[in-house]
């Protein structure tokens, strides 16, 4: 059984400024479950988007051969026509339509333009039985849980006579029972002859289900392991995933670590969209003055959710746990409370949540700290200008002046504006969420220098990052998060990429 159903060779995909994929090769045998592993941003999803025609032929280089034919997909419709269906991590279902309507959405069972409801519901019933879903096909999507929604997606794929099913992080949002059921279903589909490509961070699942694993790192294929032939362990996969060169240079710093500044204990947060699902589960961590602490975790581990739930409950419901500032318990109900207690959070999505893109630098810098620049509601514009100008110089924000609109700045300079904004509120604790995402190398170095400077001023910094070398180069201590739980705390001296990745992929026992 060595016939290959899919061969992708020499795939290169460039976005403005970045090479997302570089000469990637992927070969999938007919009737196997093929896992793709890699760190955040390694290029897994991009590769699947190339395969499924989201990025049409011509936008990438390289060749795709499917079922022995060379394919040049112009869009998702083309790839689906060939029998390739992708199920994205964010499910693409319409919540107010029924299961049957969703299964045949865009592919309606109709006679001369009029939908044949009997046939629709009957065929939907047959498909849901195949995937082990016992709900009536007329049930609304919004009335069933995520696990079952996932099954509806698979039923939808089956309705399109799928030959190659791609699942992007299918179990990330599922509880253990649903995950186990899904994996069983995939095994069943394999026996029916459907080939699966599965992207997953959960290495124990990969080991349990996959017939082969392809590891991608920094947009390149590292290796393909055959589960039957090679002796594949989690450690073996991890060593392929990490091992990114530590060539980023980091500014020198002599840490001067003081008293504890901030501590959270037993922090639990539930998902606002999926009742009963814990996004953060009993997490505890502490930060000391002058210390840079890293928070490592893969996509969906709950890093941002942890940070935002602490920062004025801007994420999640049924939040429980205790927060201590300088050893004293504090209560943070709103963002204003957080700022008052000297806590700042710079978001990972600076364009959407961190900045007002249609305003200028001056007003973005002053937005959070305006209280200090105004008296009885009246803003002192001269002072505001002076402060903004000061930040522009000290942070080296490259712009003609503080009246420049931030939407037109480069990513690095936008990030400096975000940091300026928070530094103006005079925080003791800074939570920086992916502070160097989408920033070029030179600007990264500048951001590192700024972070070091903040620590030297005695502030406690919690840095969330998907780039392990960055955490290793900058942090005094690193916490790892996996499925909402703190799975480890590693001091600088003991931290290696392998050790962190092992902790980050540690599933539930």
């Amino acid at each position: 059984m060595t016939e290959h159903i899919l061969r992708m060779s020499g795939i290169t995909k460039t976005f403005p400024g970045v090479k997302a994929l570089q000469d990637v090769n992927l070969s999938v045998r007919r009737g196997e479950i093929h896992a793709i592993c890699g760190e955040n941003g390694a290029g897994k999803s991009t590769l699947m988007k190339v395969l499924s025609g989201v990025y049409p032929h011509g936008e990438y280089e390289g060749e795709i051969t499917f079922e022995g034919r060379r394919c040049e997909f112009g869009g998702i419709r083309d790839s689906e026509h060939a029998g390739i269906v992708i199920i994205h991590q964010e499910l693409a279902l319409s919540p107010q339509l029924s299961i049957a309507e969703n299964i045949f959405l865009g592919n309606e069972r109709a006679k001369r333009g009029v939908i044949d409801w009997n046939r629709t519901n009957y065929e939907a019933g047959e498909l849901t039985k195949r995937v082990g879903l016992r709900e009536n096909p007329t049930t609304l999507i919004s009335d069933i849980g995520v696990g079952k929604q996932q099954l509806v997606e698979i039923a939808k794929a089956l309705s399109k006579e799928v030959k190659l099913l791609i699942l992007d992080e299918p179990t990330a949002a599922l509880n253990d029972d649903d995950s186990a059921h899904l994996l069983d279903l995939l095994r069943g589909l394999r026996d029916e002859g459907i080939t699966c490509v599965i992207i997953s961070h959960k290495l124990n699942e990969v080991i349990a289900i996959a017939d082969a694993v392809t590891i991608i790192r920094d947009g390149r294929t590292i290796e393909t392991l055959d589960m039957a032939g090679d002796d594949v362990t989690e450690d073996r996969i991890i060593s392929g995933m990490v091992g990114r060169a530590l060539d980023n240079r980091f500014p020198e710093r002599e840490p001067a670590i003081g008293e504890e500044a901030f501590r959270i204990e037993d922090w639990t947060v539930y998902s606002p969209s999926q009742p009963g699902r814990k996004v953060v589960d009993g997490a505890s961590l502490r930060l000391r003055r002058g210390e840079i602490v890293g928070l490592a975790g893969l996509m969906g581990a709950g890093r941002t959710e942890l940070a935002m739930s602490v920062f004025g409950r801007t994420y999640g419901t049924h939040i429980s746990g205790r927060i201590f500032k300088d050893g004293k318990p504090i209560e943070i109900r709103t963002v204003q409370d957080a700022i008052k207690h000297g806590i700042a959070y710079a978001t990972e999505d600076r364009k959407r949540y961190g900045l007002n893109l249609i305003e200028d630098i001056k007003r973005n810098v002053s937005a959070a700290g305006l209280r200090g620049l105004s008296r009885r509601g009246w803003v002192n514009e001269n002072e505001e200008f002076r402060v903004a100008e000061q930040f522009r110089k000290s942070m080296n924000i490259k712009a003609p002046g503080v009246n420049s609109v931030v939407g037109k700045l480069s990513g690095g300079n936008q990030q400096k504006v975000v940091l300026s904004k928070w530094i103006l509120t005079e925080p003791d604790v800074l939570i920086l969420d992916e502070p160097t995402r989408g920033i070029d190398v030179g600007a990264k170095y500048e951001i590192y220098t700024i972070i070091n400077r903040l620590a030297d001023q005695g502030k406690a910094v919690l840095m969330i990052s998907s780039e392990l070398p960055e955490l290793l180069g900058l942090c005094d201590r690193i916490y790892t998060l996996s499925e909402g739980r703190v799975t480890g705390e590693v001091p600088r001296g003991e931290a290696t990429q392998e050790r962190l990745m092992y902790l980050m992929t540690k599933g539930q026992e």
Partner: protein
Amino acid sequence: MTSITGLPGLHRTVPQKYIPVLVTAGLFVAMFVAGGIRYENFATGQIILNVFIDNAFLLVVAVGMTFVILTGGIDLSVGSVVALSTMIAASLLKDGWPALGVIVLVLVIGAVLGLGMGAIIHYFEIQPFIVTLAGMFLARGLCYTISTDSIPIENETFTAIAQTRIGLGGDLSVSPSALIAVVVVLIAAFVLHYTRLGRNVYATGGSEQSALLMGLSVARTKISVYTISGFCSALGGLLFAFYSLSGYGLGAVGMELDAIAAVVIGGTLLTGGSGYLLGTVLGVLVLGLIQTIISFEGTLSSWWTKIFIGVLLFAFILLQRLFLGGSRR
């Protein structure tokens, strides 16, 4: 980056955010000059002052609307609140209430109506469109509970204000209402540009989520702008009462749409976050000048006003599209 097409060079010397206001200003000047060439006795200062006098109430209402639209909201209730204010004023004055008491009461009622709608919009997370639509029907309906007929106003203070003309030197003069409107514009402009509330209005409209994450009081801001809009509508209603010396439940029908048109023509983005009060003033002046020109023309039906406003709105919405395309990429 897209630049405003048809204005080569301009975007390099003038910040892009001022361009819509400048376009409106240019349009106003062009209309004034064209009118001056075409008609005798048109190009005088008094023509512009008359536009202020005839549109003082619209100007005040549009000021409130500007606050709301800057946060990314909309207030459809303003026309009805104007009518309700004239009705309350006229009926209470007929009952012999003192003018000052009536004025204060009407302003309080307008502000409270706005406050209520703002609170519902914010705390129940309902779209402003639907809440203020409900407010529009409610206020309009309340007019008829007072009376289905027009009530004349014979109060001395009100008639005195209606008839007074304040000389500005030469043969120029304005009504007290126009002056009140200008004062409202000045206060509002100061609030928008020199206070924290003003900053919060722009920040909320620019991106509500980012405003929340910056610790800005989005709740207070949103409720404030609807309160301001309600207050401005009530004040606009009083000015309308000075102007028409009557209260009528069918008055000011569709004024909310005129106010929205004026704000948009003035260059404020309907999505919020960008725009200036000066633009709104120019927007009202442009609308007023269209009416003036049509009355000078004599042979054109007054419905042509609507046609011109429609064409202008299309033009400005397209202009905003280009403007947005340039800054959000």
